[in-house]
């Protein structure tokens, strides 16, 4: 497998490419290669996502790192003939960009595995996710071995704290601190939960991580279990993520067979096992306490915090909940140390972030970049620029994310810089839009989502989302009341201050930022003469205004 002299073809098999027939293409490739008698020289490797996600079947060829997209089954014979028999590039489907040479499978060197700044996705697109041996071949489970055999739980927690890793699920809470809270509780059993619900529209990073590198999540969960003294882990995953579920199940099975899960892992007296829990379709279940209720078999309504899951979590026992991407950072940090991790990203938020870049860009897809690069860099350096028209706005972090205008293109994407403007980084979705979409239209779509997903537990959120939806819809149609924008701000403010859970509180984000940056455009949708009843605003009311 590590022979550099042979040619490698990486076939990206993930949920996007499978739909375009990647599996058939792979089979066809193999038959064609053997028909030409060169299957010894050219190795076909099945991998997770390589990068571009809207370009049909994607192939990478090494050495050289050529990237081919949109290949059809009929073309494979010609492709093999041209590329491997004659040794010329197959111009018709060649993309301009190249895969970095380091992606080629080669002798494993633990210090070098994290190439070109990829930490989370380093193996995605490089190894076969359904084969534990390949994961081990690139240094997998080494971090677990070193954790269990050489380090105490306290030492591990200290490493994670020193690395400065923050949660990637949306809130950005320091991960080491969270682990230490769970560790301090001396009430057993404890649990580790991996949040793979990923319901935020426009976000599918966790899916591609799980599809491309499921063992990394398992390894990280075992390390987490050891560090907080838990013996049972759960992965709560969306029912729609069929391929992820399948691969995780397979990975868990393989790990059990090699005693990387189960009893006396690595010959120590530590036991840990993982169970998959499948969600049933509800956005709010991604919120950690709602998720716990859902695992317990109840309606996925959030619980009051505090107490936090670290004290009273699953079945009222201490529980650690982390997002998939957060966990995917753990093995590399344990292996390479906190200082290495701090080489990436910013002082306040070290590391990389996986973004899903979507909307009106030339190359929508998944990227992993150091934290702190700007929106402009994402759009023009990574996503190939705006596909048609001019850049108008971007919504960052999913439906509950802020709507930014062209003026914010140069703001670094890290928690500190964004919070200075009153914004959040959120889940990693970057929805880029040109001027074919009006702000009111975007807001309507977001509010409709919230009105649908509000769990109904508290009235501010239940009624507020519905009100905001109808208000935005009026604006969309150009029929807004004279005091519409003030009312929207009031309602959003009330929700931010009084909603029971973060879902209701987060609804305010897109509303505030749209009012801040696109007030002019929104005002144009107002029919001046009509005034609505004013639910919260009185002459001398003490409503606090957020901006």
């Amino acid at each position: 497998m590590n022979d550099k002299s042979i040619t490698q073809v990486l076939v990206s098999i993930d949920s996007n490419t499978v739909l375009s027939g990647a599996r058939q293409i792979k089979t066809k490739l193999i038959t064609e290669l053997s028909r030409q008698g060169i299957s010894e020289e050219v190795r076909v490797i099945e991998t997770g996502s390589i990068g571009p996600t809207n370009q049909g079947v994607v192939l990478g060829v090494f050495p050289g790192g050529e990237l081919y997209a949109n290949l059809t089954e009929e073309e494979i014979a010609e492709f093999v003939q041209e590329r491997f028999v004659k040794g010329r590039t197959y111009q018709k489907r060649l993309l301009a960009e190249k895969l970095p040479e380091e992606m080629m499978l080669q002798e494993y060197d633990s210090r070098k595995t994290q190439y070109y700044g990829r930490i989370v996705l380093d193996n995605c697109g490089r190894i076969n996710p359904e084969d534990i041996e390949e994961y081990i071949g690139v240094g997998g489970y080494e971090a677990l071995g070193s954790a269990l055999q050489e380090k105490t739980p306290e030492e591990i927690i200290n490493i994670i704290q020193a690395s400065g890793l923050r949660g990637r699920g949306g809130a950005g809470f320091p991960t080491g601190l969270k682990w230490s809270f769970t560790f301090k509780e001396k009430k057993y059993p404890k649990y580790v939960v991996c949040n793979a619900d990923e319901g935020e529209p426009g976000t599918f990073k966790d899916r591609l991580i799980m599809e491309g590198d499921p063992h990394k999540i398992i390894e990280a969960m075992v390390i987490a279990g050891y560090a907080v003294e838990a013996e049972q882990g759960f992965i709560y995953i969306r029912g729609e993520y069929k391929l992820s579920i399948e691969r995780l199940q397979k990975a868990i099975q393989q790990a059990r067979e090699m005693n990387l899960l189960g009893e006396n892992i690595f010959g120590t007296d530590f036991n840990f096992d993982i169970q998959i829990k499948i969600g049933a379709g509800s956005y709010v279940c991604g919120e950690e306490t709602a998720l716990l209720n859902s695992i317990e078999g109840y309606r996925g309504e959030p619980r009051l915090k505090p107490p936090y899951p670290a004290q009273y979590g699953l079945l009222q026992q201490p529980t650690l909940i982390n997002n998939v991407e957060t966990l995917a950072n753990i093995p590399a940090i344990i292996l390479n140390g906190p200082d290495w991790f701090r080489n990436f990203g910013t002082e306040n938020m070290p590391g990389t972030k996986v973004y899903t870049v979507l909307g009106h860009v030339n190359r929508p897809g998944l990227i992993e970049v150091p934290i702190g690069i700007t929106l402009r860099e994402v759009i023009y350096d990574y996503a190939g620029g705006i596909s048609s028209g001019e850049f108008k706005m971007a919504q960052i972090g999913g439906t509950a994310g802020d709507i930014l205008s062209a003026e914010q293109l140069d703001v670094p994407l890290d928690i500190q810089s964004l919070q200075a403007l009153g914004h959040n980084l959120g889940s990693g979705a970057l929805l880029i839009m040109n001027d074919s979409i009006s702000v009111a239209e975007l807001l309507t779509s977001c509010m409709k989502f919230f009105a649908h997903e509000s769990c109904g537990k508290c009235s501010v959120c239940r009624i507020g989302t519905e009100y905001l939806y109808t208000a935005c819809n009026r604006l969309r149609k150009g029929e807004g009341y004279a005091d519409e924008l003030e009312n929207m701000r009031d309602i959003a403010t009330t929700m931010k201050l009084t909603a029971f859970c973060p879902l209701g509180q987060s609804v305010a984000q897109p509303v505030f930022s749209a009012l801040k940056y696109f007030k002019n455009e929104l005002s144009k949708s107002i029919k001046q003469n009509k005034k609505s009843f004013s639910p919260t605003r009185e002459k001398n009311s003490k409503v606090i205004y957020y901006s």
Partner: protein
Amino acid sequence: MGCLCNQQEISEEEKYKQLKEFIAENREKKGYLIPVLHMAQVIFGYLPDEVQAFVARGMNISTSQVKGVVTFYSYFKTSPAGRHHITVCLGTACYVRGSKKILDALEDKLGIKVGETTPDRRFSMGVQRCLGACGLAPVIMIDEDVHGRMTAKKLDKILDQYK
């Protein structure tokens, strides 16, 4: 899950028996209501009141708790679906790429609205907020198949595949 095509021959009685067995295996475990309901929906295709009551009795919990859970999660259906279920994604990524137009075209073609079933029970239709395939936006899902980069033009050809 959710498709009954190959189970048509099974009698009601047999279905209840299957469900009963599954409940018996799992009732002692904590938090098994949702997996049981998943299974019930696989067996029956949807979750009518009788099935919900059956689950409640079998698991020794109140019917209201079962109903509360069933109505909370969008995955559970309480009315029979068509042979093929179409889900149109109206998530933001799909929306800005024109999924509303796809929905309108579908409503037009099939003569049904969201949440309804065609008279011949061939198609039923629902919407979702993000199917997690935004890279292919706009996306629709028919049964278990995801169709990406949809256009209204492509619809006929795709619908034809589902009889």
